[in-house]
């Protein structure tokens, strides 16, 4: 064994210490999620639901009798969908346009795209709030969607740009030379090439929107998304039905991710 240590490190077999360390990091990452799941089975019925008083499935049924909670989840999905569609549209056009053309102000757009990514979310939140209040746009679903578009579009563009960097314009030219019009060229040549990028960009936008707290907090008006509902219920102790819904969402999203990821890996292996 002593000699073993002096030879090259064994790269295929993990060290015991390394594995222990990684396990403890995963424990750290998943611990609060276990607490959330555990609390969703808490039989304690009095606020602030602090002590665990036995095991019950009741909350998973009661949850469907809480219209405010369910509609907050509906709002989250609505905002996430609308903002993802919009940011994918704007982002795809912009990414392809910026890849294809050279123009004045390109570097300005480039620089501006980094602002929503780099500045703390709270700045984007209060500045959008101020402007919405200034031009008196009533706060609600519309302002939520607009704000989510503002922070997720750059991520879509960056994802696509990585994809486009290896993409040759000659394909398009060839298609046009062969008589395809602009729309056909885009649909049959450009789009299939960048589709994986669009998908992962869209998925990213969707994820960002679903979990957003800080920006939504400022621009929501009276509309509540699920994270804002959680924020409100944290004030008086999170009710077990909120934990139950979170658990269901976790299961659902993990399911989707596993499904799509396995799909992604397969198709990438093929291509």
């Amino acid at each position, binding site marked *: 064994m002593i000699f073993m240590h002096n030879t090259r490190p064994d790269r295929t077999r993990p060290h015991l210490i390394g594995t222990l360390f990684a396990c403890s990091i995963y424990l750290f990452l998943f611990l609060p999620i276990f607490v959330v799941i555990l609390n969703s089975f808490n039989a304690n019925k009095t606020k602030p639901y602090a002590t665990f008083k036995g095991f019950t499935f009741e909350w998973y049924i009661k949850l469907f009798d809480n219209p405010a909670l369910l509609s907050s989840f509906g709002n989250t999905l609505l905002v996430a969908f609308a903002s993802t569609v919009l940011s994918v549209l704007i982002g795809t056009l912009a990414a392809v346009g910026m890849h294809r053309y050279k123009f004045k102000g390109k570097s300005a757009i480039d620089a501006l795209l980094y602002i929503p990514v780099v500045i703390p979310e709270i*700045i984007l939140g209060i500045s959008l709030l101020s402007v919405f209040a200034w031009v008196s746009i009533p706060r609600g679903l519309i302002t939520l969607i607009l704000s989510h578009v503002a922070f997720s579009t750059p991520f879509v563009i960056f994802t696509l740009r990585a994809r486009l960097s290896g993409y040759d314009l000659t394909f398009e030219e060839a298609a046009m030379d062969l008589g395809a019009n602009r729309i056909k060229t885009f649909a049959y040549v450009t789009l299939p090439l960048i589709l994986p990028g669009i998908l992962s960009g869209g998925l990213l936008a969707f994820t960002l929107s679903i979990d957003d707290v800080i920006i939504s907090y400022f621009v929501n008006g009276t509309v509540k998304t699920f994270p804002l509902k959680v924020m409100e219920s944290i004030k008086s102790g999170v009710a077990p039905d909120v934990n139950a819904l979170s658990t269901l969402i976790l299961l659902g999203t993990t399911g989707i*991710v596993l499904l799509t990821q396995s799909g992604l890996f397969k198709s990438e292996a093929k291509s």
Partner: protein
Amino acid sequence: MMTLNDKKQKMPMLTMLSPITSMLIFLVVIPLIYVLVLSFCKTNEYYQVMFTFSFDNYKNLLSPSYFQVYMNSIVIAAITTVICIVLGYPFAYYIVKQPPKIRTILYMLVIIPFWTNSLIRIYGWKSFLGASGLLNNLFVWLGITHKPLELLFNRGAVVLGMTYTLFPFMVLPLYTAIEKLDLTLIEASYDLGARKVNTFLHVILPLTSSGIFAGAIMVFIPTLGFFFVSDILGGGKSDMIGNLIERQFGSANNWPLGSALSIILILLTLIMVRLYTKAGGKLEDLG
């Protein structure tokens, strides 16, 4: 090759680029300029914004108590960043070293916690660490203490919450950087008789520094603005810049002062990003 001079190209170019341009102008540039304008305004006794030009807000912000909040925020953000690097680097290294199949699974396991709402996970920590929470119950049951320990409402709890929320933002760029490592270089270093420590310090670390820098920026800057973590785990005691801004736009109801605070935070961010690019970091890595 298509160029701008080609007249036919003008229309499609406009359709492709005007949506993003108008989005950036209306949802990023104008709001930020408006905040800059607000920061020079004042409020009257009914909390309404008066559009008069004054430096009062900035003068107020020079007072020592605000300065202490900035320092407090920077210290918490710096500690969080350092902890994230120290824990994240070996962790990312460990994941990269696994065989591809396991690596994918381990990578996914870092992302999955993301899919649960971040607030409820922070609350999960609160209920875990609370006086009647699991950890204290365990301690009492094991006889380590006979009274519940006070683990919440202090700076340590805030740092824990920040580290928890932002840890993946450190791991992911580190993962990318370590994955790109050229293994032959490391082997060459070993072959030349370098010891592990030297190989790490002189070969591996410099080659992966881009990941460290990008991760540091992606942890440090958001920490400054995360007001809910210090509210939930810190008991509202150690205000950070984010809390101050949130309060000015909420209960203190002084938007001009909040705007001035925001401008300070933007400046702080710009300084950090400037340092980052000076150190050779690329903006692309922050996406």
